[in-house]
């Protein structure tokens, strides 16, 4: 059902955990459906003064696809500017994982939503 890469990311998840003094936090999903993803980001600045995702951590209650996409999306955004991170789509995450079974597409959407939600949370905090 899952390809080798998905299973590898599921088996050896990267970047899981929490950031205590996070800049933004996104939590999406619903335990009834069997998927909850929480994502923390820490924002910093690069040499050119652009805002970048300095650190990112996740926690997920969900199936292998949910865990693998959580791990992959955090790997993809780490070090990226906020503008770049905003452009990351669930299709890109799925593609990087070499594809997911069609019924698991919603897991990759969850990863994209968690990232979006964390970035929006940061932007809201910044305005305050």
């Amino acid at each position, binding site marked *: 059902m*899952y390809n080798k890469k998905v*299973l590898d990311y*599921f*088996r050896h*998840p990267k970047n*899981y*955990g929490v950031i205590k003094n996070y800049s933004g936090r996104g*939590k999406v999903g619903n*335990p*009834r*459906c*069997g*998927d*909850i*993803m*929480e994502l923390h980001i820490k924002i910093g600045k690069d040499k050119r003064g652009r805002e970048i995702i300095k650190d990112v951590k*996740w*926690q*997920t*209650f*969900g*199936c*292998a*696809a*949910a*865990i693998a996409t959580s791990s992959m999306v955090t790997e993809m955004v780490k070090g990226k500017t906020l503008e770049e991170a905003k452009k990351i789509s669930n299709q890109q995450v799925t593609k990087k994982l070499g594809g997911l079974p069609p*019924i*698991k597409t*919603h897991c990759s959407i969850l990863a994209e939503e968690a990232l979006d939600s964390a970035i929006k949370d940061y932007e809201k905090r910044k305005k305050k």
Partner: protein
Amino acid sequence: MEVYLDNSATTQVDGKIIKLMNKYFSENYGNPSSLHDFGRRAKESLDKSREIIAKKINTNKDEIIFTSGGSESNNLALNILKEGDHLITTKIEHPSIFETAKNLERKGIKVTYLNVNKEGFVDLDELKKSINKNTKLVSIIHGNNEIGVIQDLEAIGKICKNILFHTDAVQSFCKINIDVNKFNLSLASFSSHKIHGPKGVGALYVKKGLELNKMILGGHQEMNKRGGTENVPGIVGFGEAIKLIKENDIKRIGELRDFLIKELLKIPRTRLNGSKNKRLCNNINISFELIEGEGLMLHLDMKGVKVSTGSACSSQTLEPSHVLIAIGLPHEIAHGSIRFSLSKNTTKKELLYTIKKVKEVAKLLRKISPLKDDTK
């Protein structure tokens, strides 16, 4: 280490059975419907297996027909109903019963799905109250395939006085005594591959005089209740599998089950699903809170331990197990349920390894789960 704990899904075929079956592919390969001696010998072998099954459930061999498995037997049993009839079944049936019941509803048959309590038992009063003048058939699973709960068929049979009574005995057959007379059964489904026999073989007990709605047409085989050349090697294997069942094995499996339950419940935030006492000797179903079952199952798989899960993520519908919902588990806990099912080949050493691995995986998955903070 490889540990196979999915014996409710299927079992390993006993070597002795394979050896015996092989003879029926290469030497005694006759068609039981043929009149020459090849055919006669094949027919005798079929009837020998028929006799073994009949004896096991305290009936006569002319009340047993062979099918392709438990699912076909269940389909065939329920398809006895016609438009206007009323069927009573439960919310914890195997898909081959409830999908058939849903299909019957589309054909104008009324269906009542009985509730179960939190241990999984049918309420006998609800059953009594559900019976009306159109009620033709009551179909209730004997030993549940997911949570192992065993229904009191004797008590249910007493309620079904002038009504046909069917049971899906696929999981309970050869684990618990079944007496079709004592239980007042008219129909009962059995399967070979759950008891170390080959796949693709099952049986249906049909009380004498009962007319089925034939589903496979084209021949007068099986007392004109099911067309098609019989699967002789498989049926011989099925009979042999029953002969190889030992009372001692059942007892030992039950002891191993109790040991595994006791040890797994030592893990914090776990619960046993189903009844503690009236339970199939080989079934363990445990919910691990804060964890999603597919993840747990796949991690165990990679460590060599083969189990199954009631999690939605492992199903094609993304809905958690209907049985776990019927016993009142909240969705998020149903998602974290694992079934461990044992067999006569299971050893204590394998269970010790399993316990160790379950603890490791549960710890890891709880570490990456965001749910813990919410539930403190």
